[in-house]
């Protein structure tokens, strides 16, 4: 399922990342990697960005980007 479909508080595992190369590199640098656990902390109002946690790092990303990251509950 898409990362954007998680509910706040749910923890899933990253399966694959389907973004262009530049964004993929940035996500890698922030710790997005297949096999890592990712927790959705909260979603901002008005379809704003998501706050996710990988390890001890908190990251903000828009829903459009979160739709390109596949996870498994």
């Amino acid at each position, binding site marked *: 399922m898409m990362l954007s479909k998680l509910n706040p508080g749910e923890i899933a595992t990253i399966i694959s990342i389907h973004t262009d190369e530049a964004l993929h590199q940035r996500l890698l640098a*922030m710790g997005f990697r*297949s096999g890592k656990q990712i927790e959705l902390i909260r979603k901002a109002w008005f379809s704003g*960005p998501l706050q996710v946690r990988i390890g001890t790092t908190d*990251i903000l990303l*828009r829903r459009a*980007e979160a739709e390109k990251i596949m996870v498994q509950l």
Partner: protein
Amino acid sequence: MKRIALLGMPNTGKSTLFNRLTGSASRVGNWPGITVELLSGKILLGDEMVEIIDLPGIYDMHGFSEDEQVVRHFLHENIPDLALVVLNAAQIERQLSLLLQLKQFKLNMVVLLNMSDETKKLGITIDVNKMSATLGMPIFLLSAKYGTGYPEALQAITKALRNSVPSMPESVRKLIAQDEHIEREMAQIILQTVQIPARLPDNMTNRLDSLLLHPWLGLPIFFGFMFLLFQAIFLFGQPLQGVVNALFGWMREHAFGPLVGFLPAAIQGLLLDGVYNGVATVAAFVPLIVLFFLFMAIVEDTGYLSRAAFLMDALMAKMGLDGRSFVMLLMGFGCNVPALMGTRVMRSRSLRLLSMLVIPFSLCSARLQVFVFISAALFTPKAAPVVLFSLYLFSFATAILTALLFKRHYPNTEPFVLELPPYRFPTFRQMVMRGWHEVYQFLHRASKFIVAGVVLVWLLTNLPPSAAPASADTIAGMIGAWLHPIFSPIGISPDLTIALIFGFVAKEIVIGSLAVIYGMSGDALSGTLASQLDWVQAYSFMLFTLVYTPCLSTIATLRNESQSNKFMWFSIAWSLTLAWLLSFLFYQAARALGY
């Protein structure tokens, strides 16, 4: 079951290859020696099932990034039956180092040179047979993207697996042990000598976040907090400003005045009413600037600004901007110049230009001085902070309006991904350093523009010598009269028009030039302004000052960062137009309502 470890640098198509090999049958699992989970999958090779493990991409087998440590620990604890090394063939000259490092490990290896389609396009040819013979291991060219070269590679992998005896020579174990020793030493040294600023425990950050990032309360809290902040600046800054003013007044009367007493009257006037009054008026703002940046430093260093990006991104997206643009807009409240330079983090040119178009509407600390002075002179102590806050709202409103109007010309698809730092207490030293740095910058700018500016104003308001100072017959009076048709519909008098012209150079000069125009400073200047203007005129003047081009430095930065004269002129023209229209609407509406 035999195990294959997939190794390689980042960005080699390793994961694409993994997905292709395993199909969708992958799972996540724990491994001895490491704390992160790794993705693995089982496939049928020849006549036996084998497990493939996708290791993180790394640059250096002996490096100390998190990923490099993970790979090293994995190999140490779980020697694979086969190491499948994926290299980007198009960057082979850079990537060969990793392969040679791995060769020292004496692992059973098969090398795949991926992205052979790209090498072909680049005209790179690799003599695979020769390389294979030189290194003593099977090497294959393939394209994970198009799926070419697979059958041969799979055959070689199957063959290599058949008679593998996983082992690791003692020399390699020593090498790894050395690296692990360095890891431990690193951790120990950092523990003993590196002080990381006090960080709230995670659950405290979480609890604060659940309030400050609350879906409904988040934004009201943010704006309430900002309001209190500016109230506090006003509350503490004003008395300090009075002290500095009194100090300069006393020095003029008892030190500087008598010192220049022997000079001719005209020169004395230039020095006392020009330079001294101008500089004294500007210097009185130093405490305010210190306070402002002290508070901004606290907001920024605590990590609250990134939270603001989170809260505002949904709204900013509707304006064609993103949360980072909002943070830059807030930074612009200090000074527009670094905020403009901060847009460099944006990769999309459209997003950058649109952000640079709205940032100059941020009410910077130089404009704050003007507003603090005028609102204190024209409004009651109770009303003044509210007036100030309303100007901040106008600052946002003009930025929003501009973005909405022009977002179609700057379409943007840039992804928004940002790290959210935990809340931190800035150290006292950090705050002091920051405050000092900003004051230094302010005084540096001031020494460049303000003295020259106030001297020029004095000359304009005192020449020709036959005219009475600051009267209609002086050069300034004539310029003011000439521009009168433009500025009278917005309630700005010829005197104030001169101040606006100088404000184009730098807003720091505006109050200084008023001091020179009226030949007085401090409380006396406030009194004169109060007697010459009503609140509607004063507010119209402040609105115009808020919206029109901030200063020459900002323009120069706009030009440099956009590399476009057209964009710079467009920004100047738009802000002047908007400033006039806004003041016009306000002034005429207020007068029509009988104020």
